[in-house]
């Protein structure tokens, strides 16, 4: 199962490296949204709650793009039939797609988070890097698990471009709450953790529930 998941993941990463379709688009999108927020809020620098909210809303919106493209290559070129015919467990497909989405998000954040620090954030980012990385990683796991599930759910519907974001964003409200609340104290001028453990617990719980749930129900999707 792990070997099959690894093979599919390698295929997805190679495809992404060659076509450069999702990650550059998602990164560009985050930068555009920062510009939109700059003009929409009419502020040159943000801090605290506003900064955390802008950062996480931007990342979630970028994730929507990644999710709606997650099965695009298979669908457009008909590769999905080959994948489904292969004697491979659906769980490995879920793990591969979730891992691909996770890596895409990490790649986007490598650019998007420093860019946020440069463009919009008032206080520096450097003070709390380990904690911030932990929050980003836990948030990305949740987004990747729910994203892979939603992408598979929406893949077979007629209006998939509509349904994927509509499904994804309400499902990610707890992630937004936990991540934004956990990040907020680090983005204030007087940095310092506040209630960090509580939000990390919530994020971990969310991640565990949705990874297990997706593994359990993924078998019933993409069956024929």
């Amino acid at each position, binding site marked *: 199962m792990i070997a099959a998941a690894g093979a599919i993941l390698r295929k997805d990463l190679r495809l992404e490296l060659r076509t450069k379709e999702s990650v550059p688009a998602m990164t560009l999108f985050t930068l555009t949204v920062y510009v939109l927020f700059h003009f929409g809020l009419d502020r040159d620098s943000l801090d605290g709650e506003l900064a955390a909210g802008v950062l996480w809303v931007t990342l979630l919106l970028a994730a929507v793009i990644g999710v709606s493209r997650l099965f695009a290559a298979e669908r457009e070129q008909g590769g999905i039939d080959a994948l489904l015919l292969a004697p491979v467990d659906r769980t490995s497909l879920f793990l591969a797609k979730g891992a691909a989405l996770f890596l895409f998000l990490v790649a986007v954040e490598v650019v998007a988070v420093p860019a946020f620090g440069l463009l919009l954030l008032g206080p520096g980012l450097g003070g709390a890097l380990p904690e911030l990385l932990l929050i980003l990683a836990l948030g990305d796991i949740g987004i990747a698990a729910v994203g892979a*599930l939603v992408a598979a*759910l*929406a893949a*077979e*519907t*007629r*209006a998939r471009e*509509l*349904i994927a974001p*509509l*499904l994804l964003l*309400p*499902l990610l*409200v*707890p992630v937004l*709450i*936990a991540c934004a*609340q956990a990040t907020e104290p680090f983005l204030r001028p007087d940095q310092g953790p506040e*209630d960090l453990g*509580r*939000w990390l617990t*919530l994020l971990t*719980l*969310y991640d565990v*529930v*949705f990874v297990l*749930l*997706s593994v359990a*129900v993924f078998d*019933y*999707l993409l*069956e*024929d």
Partner: protein
Amino acid sequence: MYSKGFVPLAIATVVTLATAMGLVFFYAPLDADQGFVQKIFYVHVPMAIVSLCGFVAGGVMAIKHLRSGDSSWDMRSYVAIHISIILGVGVLATGAIWAKASWGHWWVWDEPVLVSFLVVVLLYCVYYPLRFSIEDRERQARYSSVFAIAAGAFVPLNFAAVRMAEAYTHPRVLSQTGGSMPGEMRLTFLISLLAMALLFVTLWKLELTSKHASMQLKRLKRKLAEREVVTT
């Protein structure tokens, strides 16, 4: 198939609803703080509880469908979610009315239960476009069930998250829904809750019966049309 015991159930629902309304208006004491407005509590809270239980029940029926492959469980899950969404819209409306009357605003963001409810209703509203944009019957049932399970698990998680977010900025003592309710209020509330639950089950059965009947009618019509084609 679904109509067994429907008439006694409907009668019980009507009687309980009437009793609950009578108790609300003539028996339950006026709230010392909010006065008459507080009586909306006996509609709003039972509706919210029943609708949430309906969402979770829809998820459980969806699990049964995926395990057994019996499409009638999918139909049950669909109708349960359908009626829960209708009740959910009612909860948001009565909540807004209550908020306007007691706090002066139509919408209050620091009321965690109301906000979580909005997120849940927004999520479940996607059930319809998802379900009806899949043509293949069997696949439609399967995908809807997967959605119902994921969303059913999401409901408690979402409540925990929103409550934590609000408790963080607004520490709240347990409100009047808590243990400090006087006996008359508690009795009225419990009867109202029972009435709402019965109403849910009655509507659920009614909708199932009508869906089943219209499906049978469609099948018969198709058969008739086929026969006409053959004979002419």
